[in-house]
């Protein structure tokens, strides 16, 4: 996500390949092919087209800008409200595989400047999901709503978890809860009776 540091990063290339809705501000001759719905050779002012972010960025940065970049729907007001209310209910895998990364690029096109805060809030709230997904046994359903980087992070955490539990179990003296104790439903009471 840095400026130059990600030039060769595959995941950054994938992120910048995501499509964003744009509105063309000028007539572009011979560019009609960009809009699949159009039959003409020229692209008219005011056409709304979804183009990859890398293209949108360079068209936007021309003086004068050729396009105005709109927010993808997951960053729009309606979704922002959902995300701010409870980010854990949203299936980011479906709605935005590169939610955070794309969000960082897109944040500057948000006039109100609220996308940034939403990103931070969402990340904070969803950390719990990563935490529980990494420890969960039912990993498939826990992983499902996570975005790409969240899944990577979960995988990392899960392998640490696994290494630790193999270490605990190995050896002459596995430091684990005895079967009998673990299956004992009223462990608390049993402890109290002992005292």
């Amino acid at each position, binding site marked *: 996500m840095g400026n130059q540091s990600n030039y060769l990063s595959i995941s950054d290339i994938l992120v910048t390949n995501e499509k964003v809705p744009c509105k063309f501000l000028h007539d572009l001759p011979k560019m009609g092919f960009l809009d699949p719905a159009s039959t003409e050779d020229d692209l008219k002012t005011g056409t709304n087209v979804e183009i990859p972010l890398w293209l949108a960025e360079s068209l936007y940065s021309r*003086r004068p800008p050729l396009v105005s970049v709109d927010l993808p729907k997951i960053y729009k007001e309606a979704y922002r409200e959902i995300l701010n209310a409870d980010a854990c209910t949203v299936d980011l895998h479906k709605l935005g595989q590169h939610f955070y990364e794309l969000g960082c690029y897109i944040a500057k096109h948000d006039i109100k400047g609220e996308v940034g805060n939403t990103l931070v809030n969402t990340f904070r709230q969803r950390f*719990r999901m990563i935490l529980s997904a990494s420890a969960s046994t039912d990993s498939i359903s826990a992983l499902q709503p996570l975005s790409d980087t969240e899944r990577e*992070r979960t995988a990392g955490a899960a392998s640490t978890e696994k290494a*630790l539990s193999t270490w605990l179990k190995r050896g002459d*003296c596995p430091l684990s*809860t005895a079967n009998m104790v673990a299956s004992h439903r009223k462990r608390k009471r049993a402890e109290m009776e002992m005292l």
Partner: protein
Amino acid sequence: MDPYEIEFIGENRIVSIIPNFSHDKIFLICGEFGPFRAGLPMNVPLWLGVMLKQKQKCRIVPPDWMDIEVLENIKEEEKRSRFFTKMPNEHYMVEAKLILGAAAEDIPRASEIKTIIKDIWDIRMSKLRTSMDALMKSGGNYGRLDHLTMMEINSVKPLLPEAMDELHRIKMMARKTMPASLNNSTFSQTGGSQNI
């Protein structure tokens, strides 16, 4: 880091043993130990102690903290406190595992000690998880890891540091709406001036 690597580091802790043989000083990379006198307690690194024990050449003297009452107190303290309490030993888990594994008969009430150490570990681990979540939610910028042992710190890697990094990156990029230019330097100037 792998737990075994931490075990390896922890194996350099000094333990007290009572050898049942006599031998001159031995010279090791980590220092010189000995001379060994049968029946006289002496200090050696944990790995050497465990090795000698496996060959039936010594008894391991239980460390001071490996005692039911001491551990009960620690457990109570740990339950009561919101924060992590200081452990008697930076590598308590490693030491407990190795000593109880190799020399359970040298430790009085070994199985009870085993259970209680496991309880302490479980309490601390669940505390660690809840405080990690709380740290993220509350929006703290740093976490204090006082009194956490190496094994415990390792158990939150790479998740916690990576998540903190990512959060910082998002904040940097999104808050300032710093230009995230692709490879265009003029863009960074124009983008910046427009949005501030």
